[in-house]
């Protein structure tokens, strides 16, 4: 390890329990095509989501496809302009920062993408791929940059002689490691991992997860881990948020959520996860949801989940339930808990 990275790590160690990133009532709306005179219509991808992640911790974000979990991740990095709410990074409001104002924050926030086959430029060699953030953010020069690249490639378990090769020469797991090395190139504090393992085989998934965990131990990174693999989310996260149709329906400390889930959606989502243990699998009762997720263009009134909920009451159609504290580790947005 070079001194720069060690200093970076110790500097962070002293400030544990500090909030790294926070979303307050975050809203991301996408404008849809509509006629010139007709009222503009919006797709409410994220509709008022609040949470915060403590430095050095991992928050898992789960939900079905189209629930807005990736949009939340991208919005935190300011890749979208929020329609409402606030984003705070290390306590500073970056909700409406301009590109120039964002520049110092860019190096502190990075992203690992889902598909290692499409997220690496096939025409660049590995050295150039890893160097790209350094080049874009004007970090390191000359020999220092080369040393840093070598350090990074070793950190993710590859060898410096891989640097002259091209992405097609690597397997999926190795490519994902290259993606991780690229994300680390800028010395980030906060990393959004958007389904980093879903394109990988089971035996390779564990390799990548172990690397992410080791890096977090050594450098105190903060992760937002977006995934639909609920057992992996339980393994890696300290807090978990469950999203449904652009809303955070439940948010809790990880064991509290898995052992004492409250929202009917969370219950059915977790019960649907197949258990890799025949005896437990034969005992577990699946709660099978009827129908599909409604369209976010025209979401149901009141609670977004009421159309598929077995416990829906009159109030659920009238009033949208707010995320409220059940205890200090657990929040849920449901009219059943009042």
């Amino acid at each position: 390890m070079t001194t720069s990275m060690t200093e970076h790590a110790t500097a962070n160690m002293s400030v544990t329990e500090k909030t790294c990133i926070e979303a307050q009532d975050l809203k991301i709306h996408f404008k849809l095509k509509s006629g010139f005179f007709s009222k503009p219509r919006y797709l409410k991808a994220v509709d008022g989501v609040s949470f915060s992640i403590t430095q050095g911790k991992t928050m898992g974000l789960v939900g079905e496809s189209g629930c807005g979990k990736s949009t939340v991740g991208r919005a935190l990095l300011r890749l979208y302009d929020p329609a409402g709410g606030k984003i705070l990074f290390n306590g500073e409001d970056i909700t409406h920062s301009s590109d120039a104002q964002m520049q110092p924050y860019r190096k502190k926030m990075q992203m690992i993408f889902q598909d290692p086959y499409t997220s690496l430029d096939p025409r660049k060699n590995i050295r150039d791929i890893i160097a790209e953030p350094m080049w874009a953010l004007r970090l390191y020069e000359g020999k220092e940059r080369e040393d840093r690249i070598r350090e990074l490639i070793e950190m993710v378990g590859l060898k410096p002689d891989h640097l002259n090769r091209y992405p097609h020469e690597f397997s999926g797991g190795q490519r994902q490691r290259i993606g991780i090395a690229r994300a680390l190139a800028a010395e980030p504090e906060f990393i959004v991992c958007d389904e980093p393992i879903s394109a990988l085989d089971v035996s390779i998934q564990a390799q990548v997860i172990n690397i992410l965990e080791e890096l977090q131990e050594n450098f105190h990174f903060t992760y937002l881990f977006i995934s639909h693999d609920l057992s992996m989310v339980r393994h890696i996260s300290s807090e978990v948020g469950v999203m449904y149709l652009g809303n955070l329906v439940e948010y809790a400390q990880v064991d509290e959520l898995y052992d004492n889930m409250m929202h009917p959606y969370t219950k059915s989502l977790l019960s649907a996860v197949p258990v890799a243990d025949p005896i437990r699998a034969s005992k577990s009762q699946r709660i099978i949801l009827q129908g599909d997720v409604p369209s976010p263009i025209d979401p149901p009134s009141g609670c977004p989940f009421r159309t598929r909920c077995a416990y829906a009451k009159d109030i659920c159609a009238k009033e949208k339930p707010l995320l409220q504290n059940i205890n200090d580790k657990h929040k849920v947005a449901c009219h059943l808990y009042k």
Partner: protein
Amino acid sequence: MSEKTGETLLEVKNLRTSFQTDAGIVQSVRGISFHANRGESLGIVGESGCGKSVSMLSIMRLLADNAHLKADKILFNGEDLLHKTAKEMRSIQGNRIGMIFQDPMTSLNPLFTVEEQLCNPLMRHLKLSKKEAKARALKMLEDVGIPSPEKRLSQFPHELSGGMRQRVMIAIAMCCQPELLIADEPTTALDVTIQAQILDLMAHMKQEYGTSVILITHDLGVIASICTRVLVMYSGLVMEEGSIEDIFYRTGHPYTAGLLASIPKETKEKLIPIYGTPPDLLNPPKGCPFTARCPHAMEVCRQYQPPLVPLGEHHSSACWLHHKSVKAKIGEVKL
């Protein structure tokens, strides 16, 4: 369920499939033997590229032109599939053996309505009239749990959600009441909630029609929830075969043990990955293909391919650790 439950329905012996490519000959399946019984669900697990899909496509004879297929025998219900002509095979494909493909987004034809795609096999195989076929199609859509089936019949695949399309795929595969249903990663592209619906539906269809199921997946959780017997494949070979209890609780192969160890547990202990990557099938290793990644690898593994050694009544594993001579030397190894 038919009274013939438990009888052998499909028997495959020494199946080898290779592909002629620009880079050379890729040996995707390198000599596998297995059987499927009537009324049972057989799971096949393995990593991408281990030959699980290719072996099923070989049985269905749906391989591309550059494929070369060899086998000692492929018997389906006592009939030899290996020497059937393409025309004879067509009366089996989609009729007596149904197949569900992995990706419902790409395996339905975007140019035809659900009705056309569902009635086609009914009219072709069961010789139903258009009207009868439509009535049957309607009932099938109802059976697979599609709401307002009349409306869906006239829709095109792009108008349906992923879960709906997979249901339509199941309806097409099941409409001629096949004796064998091959499901190639039927839920991999779907969300867990939809996956649960589809697995439930498959279990229900199996009950109702007494169909045997071969389920290909890489998810051990899916295997544990609906299969009775499991085949573990690696690098074009069968590594282990047994009941789900054998595979999960009396694991006989280091590869299976490695797969089980890389799944996260509730206790959050550190995951134990299988290091390295699978071998290149253009140039497969001489000995056991798992040698390079195996924590128990010995010299003999590098030199010779291990035979399948029986460990229990229906449980066998291809690993030198179970061989008499090795056991005599180093004793029983705990996996």
